[in-house]
């Protein structure tokens, strides 16, 4: 086996880690079981809709412990990283985890794709939603990576999930608080902002819950560009922090 390229090396390590991390399997299996039950109870179309809304979380799942645990454990102070910079390896992890997430997502997507072909209701919009979900996945990896430079043991992922829980609780309260609250909910469902205030609200919502990108209401180029800009921002900040990273374990 040759690992002449850092990406191949990083992919191998990430692949082995995911394979041997039980929690990833339990949660991924839970997701598949949830979709299967939903498909069975509510039908294919609902299950497909839930798949698109939820599959970016697979990326979030594999981004747990992305950096800090390895940095603190001392496993980067290895002869391997005298040859290949540990900083490049950590940076490459964004790509390898994205590839792994894409493989896992594609495996779950395939039954939906095949069923749509079988049923004769296939549309290219499915691919567009899938690609938007991949973008949301990359968003999660880049954000979890940035947080993962400080937070350890999966707390990078937990922080994102907690923020989203508060977001949805906030929206729930907002929706029952009168006309202006209902306007916000209508805006978030339609994905069509009028004026700069609404645009800001929508952009903020998307920054906190990028899964919305998979919805057809959020298909506008502006929203996709916003997500892309944030991905570049997170990756850029990561690269800056990684370029200054030192292994200080004594």
């Amino acid at each position, binding site marked *: *086996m*040759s*690992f*002449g390229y850092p990406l191949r*090396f990083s992919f*191998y*390590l990430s692949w*082995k*880690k995911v394979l*041997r*991390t039980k929690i990833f399997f339990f949660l991924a299996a839970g997701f598949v079981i949830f979709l299967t039950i939903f498909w069975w109870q509510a039908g294919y179309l609902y299950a497909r809709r839930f798949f698109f809304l939820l599959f970016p979380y697979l990326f979030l799942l594999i981004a747990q412990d992305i950096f800090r645990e*390895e940095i603190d*454990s*001392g*496993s*980067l*102070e*290895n*002869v*391997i*990283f*005298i*040859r*290949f*910079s*540990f900083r490049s390896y950590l940076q490459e992890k964004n790509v390898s985890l994205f590839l792994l997430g894409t493989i896992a997502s594609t495996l779950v997507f395939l039954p939906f794709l095949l069923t749509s072909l079988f049923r004769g209701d296939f549309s290219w919009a499915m691919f567009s939603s899938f690609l938007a979900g991949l973008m949301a996945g990359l968003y999660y990896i880049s954000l979890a990576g940035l947080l993962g430079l400080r937070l350890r043991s999966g707390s990078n992922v937990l922080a994102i999930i907690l923020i989203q829980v508060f977001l949805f609780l906030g929206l729930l309260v907002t929706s029952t608080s009168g006309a202006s609250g209902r306007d916000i909910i209508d805006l978030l469902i339609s994905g069509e902002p009028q004026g700069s205030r609404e645009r800001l609200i929508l952009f903020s919502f998307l920054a906190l819950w990028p899964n919305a990108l998979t919805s057809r209401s959020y298909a506008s180029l502006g929203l996709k560009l916003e997500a892309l800009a944030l991905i570049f921002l997170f990756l850029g900040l990561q690269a800056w922090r990684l370029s*200054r990273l*030192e*292994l*200080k374990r*004594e």
Partner: protein
Amino acid sequence: MSQVILRAKGLAKRFGHVQALHQVDLELIRGKLTVFLGENGAGKTTTLKIILGFLFPDAGSVEKIQQDLRIGYVPEQPAFFPWLKGEEILELTAGLFGRGESELKKRRDDAAAFLSFDVSQLNRRVRTYSHGNQKKMAYLQSMLINPDLLIVDEPFTALDPVAIKQVRDLFIRLKEKGKTVFISSHLISEAEKLADQVIIIKQGKTLLQVDWPEFVQKRIYLRTRRVGSSEKIILGRWPESQTSDDWLEAFILRREWEEFLSGLNDDLKKTVLKDVEIRSPDLESFFFFWNR
């Protein structure tokens, strides 16, 4: 002629309020084993990590004079990716350094036999190994790449007496092959058996780097109690001598000592020879001399 393969100049490093390194200078010479000595917190590990690229120096530089210098490294407490098995770590290392499967197996078996490492353990995750075997695993990994320079932080930590001897023999074998070894150790007695070069570091500063066999050959260790007239005579001739509450010590050139004795009258000579203890330099005395 000795050939320098790596040179560190003026290394300085601060961690928050702590100035870990002030001015570290050192040279590693091809085919020689260099021992890096210093008290806890003197800056040995920090220096090694800067040389290895794990830390950035605030000032100074590390120059690899030999191009494509292949460096092996064994940390004091090796840590490995906890989800990988021993075999996978070795495969990964061999793959990264462009070693084929047959070469991997040959080198692995050779090093494992030398270190009495049971290769059947390689099917398990490394985190399940004992501390000693994790250390051996780090040696195995470094041997796999056939390093030009092997850097080892506390080479004998976690090893039993048999393994200590095996590691010592491994260093000798590497030297015989023209490889360079750089060790940081507190086990002075073991280090002395191996040292070609000795570097003393104190409070983040290199005090000196000496060619140890040459030093032992050319110098003597002199010690006298700080009572009587000999102390003044010795201090007058060798003001660089170190004094503690009870003792005066110096490492002086044999030739100078002989010249000095021949210049004394018989009575003074008898007094000095009665008071002064003279022996060949040993690394422990040398280390304590510089760490008073």
